[in-house]
């Protein structure tokens, strides 16, 4: 079946030599998913991306038509049909197939990937598992008090960043959402806000902050629980707090006073919490702290999601399977277990025996044991460019770039769904095209007649 939304806003072919302008284009490099980009297109290049940040400009200006075969099998150019056939063969012959990635694919393609995993009784996992997966686990434990980004712009008068460096990971975060906007209830913009940055090093984001708190590395958990205790009026030993967190007790009490006194507090948090000692216990502490603060005032938390459509991946996998990531279908139905079905584990524990990576690069970003195992099993890779992962894939598809060549739907970090407005067509197939063809063949091999 065709997901109709892929046809929405399909790119118009460029007239050679003429400039074309696309308004309200959506940048999908980071979780900000700015949809106010004005693209100037000449032939098959974007030559200008107005309002895009440095990462967005690099994204738009560096994705044209990749001069690579659309399909390589065992390192040699092949036809797409050969690639689809081989891919379906790989996926249906393993005992423990894994599908990983998806965070830079539109929802329409993600849905097909989940279908394939269902038919082959495989395991699906997204880059969430090595990003805010721990935050997802924490949310399953304590919940989350949050809001959309426009609400931050309209009401947030105390903006905290914990373990997050938006200046380099989400460069328009401050201007578009969290610090600069003149909000409905904050007519003076930046002047109506206080910004607090907590991190183990003084990142470039510190310039934007009014208060910078440098904590001891790997002690975020203790620092957050210090704040939790202060929020609940529990007495603490100031020396112990200083030793454990590396920060004077008075700094924490001052911060808590500000947190209690604000009208609408917001904490953005990032990999500084999820990737270090504590992981989901850190995320849980910050989510519980936020919840507790609602006894004093309005307070929300937001994970800064890294990729353009990782939030879409969470949503798609959740609505189809009931679970957000790390979902196994070996028994024919979905089961969830981070640490067992997540890809860092299925690879490092040498359990996966075949797979497919979509819009991700585990050969660059995963641990050595995981990478060694991935390189030893047959898998299919879909990517817009050549990467360490495509180089070792049995079947590598060069795909068109979402948001630049192909349309579809993506979800911003606050779960707001936004359509893509692509700039120019590409001869390469899209993720959606490739996965649809693979699904057809998988169904045929397995005798699946679902329409």
């Amino acid at each position, binding site marked *: 079946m065709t997901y109709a939304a892929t046809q929405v806003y399909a790119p118009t072919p460029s007239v050679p030599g003429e400039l074309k302008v696309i308004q309200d284009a959506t940048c999908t*490099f*980071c979780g900000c998913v700015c949809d106010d980009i004005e693209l100037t297109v000449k032939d098959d290049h974007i030559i200008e991306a107005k309002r895009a940040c*440095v*990462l967005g400009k*690099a*994204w738009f*200006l*560096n*994705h044209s038509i990749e001069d690579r075969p659309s399909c390589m099998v065992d390192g040699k150019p092949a036809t797409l049909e050969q690639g689809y056939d081989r891919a379906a063969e790989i996926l249906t012959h393993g005992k423990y197939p894994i599908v990983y990635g998806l965070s830079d694919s539109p929802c329409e393609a993600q849905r097909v990937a989940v279908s394939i995993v269902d038919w082959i009784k495989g395991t699906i*996992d997204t880059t969430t*598992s*090595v990003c805010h*997966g*721990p935050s997802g*686990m924490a949310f399953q434990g304590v919940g989350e008090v949050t809001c959309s980004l426009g609400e931050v712009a309209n009401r947030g008068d105390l903006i905290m960043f914990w373990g997050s*460096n938006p200046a*380099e*990971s989400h*460069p328009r975060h401050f201007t578009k959402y969290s610090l600069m906007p003149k909000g409905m209830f904050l007519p003076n913009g930046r002047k109506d806000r206080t910004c607090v940055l907590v991190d*183990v*090093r*003084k*990142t*470039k984001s510190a310039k934007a902050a009014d208060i910078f708190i*440098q904590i001891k*590395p*790997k002690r975020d958990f203790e620092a957050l629980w210090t704040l939790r205790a202060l929020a609940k009026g529990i007495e603490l030993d100031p020396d112990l707090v200083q030793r454990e967190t590396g920060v004077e007790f008075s700094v924490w009490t001052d911060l808590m006073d500000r947190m209690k006194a604000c009208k609408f507090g917001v904490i953005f948090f990032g*990999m*500084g919490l*999820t*990737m*270090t*000692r504590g*992981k*989901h216990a850190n995320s849980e502490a910050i989510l519980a702290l936020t919840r507790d603060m609602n006894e004093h005032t309005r307070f929300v938390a937001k994970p800064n999601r*890294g990729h353009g459509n990782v939030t879409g991946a969470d949503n798609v996998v959740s609505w189809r399977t009931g679970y957000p*990531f*790390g979902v196994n279908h070996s028994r024919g139905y979905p089961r969830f277990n*981070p*640490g*067992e079905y*997540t*890809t*860092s*584990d299925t690879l*490092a*524990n040498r359990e996966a025996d075949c797979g497919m990576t979509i819009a991700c*690069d585990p050969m*660059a*970003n*995963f*641990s*050595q*044991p*995981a*990478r060694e195992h991935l390189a030893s099993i047959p898998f299919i890779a879909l990517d817009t*460019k*050549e*990467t*360490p992962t495509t180089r070792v894939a049995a079947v590598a598809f060069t795909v068109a770039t979402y948001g630049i060549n192909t349309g579809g739907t993506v979800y911003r970090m606050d779960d707001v769904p936004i359509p893509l407005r692509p700039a120019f067509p590409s001869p390469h197939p899209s993720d959606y095209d490739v996965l649809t063809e693979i699904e057809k063949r998988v169904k045929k091999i397995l005798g699946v007649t679902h329409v």
Partner: protein
Amino acid sequence: MLETFILIPGRTTDQGCGVSEGKFKAKYQTAVNSLQVAPGDMERLGLSEGDRVRLTGEEGQSVEVCITAAKKEELPEGLLFIAYGDISSQLMTGDTHGSGMPTSKGMEVTMELLQKATS
């Protein structure tokens, strides 16, 4: 006895732009192969810009990388910083402690000089 440092891998602007330019091109490769050391630590240990060091993790995983001085004030002494990439990945172990997330920040490593930079 070698001193222990805490390694913080992270996103940088160059690494982010480099991903879009292509991971085999210069911008990305330079960004992910360059270990930032606090100037105070460099001075104390007699290290200079461009020296090649070996980092060894708690489980013996080790990697060689060239160093560069962090901007003053940005990196506390005792910490090392590098952009996410192959080097940082090599220092991650396979254990995710049941969370799905390998320890990707705050790894304890020892650092030893392998080769002085040729001037």
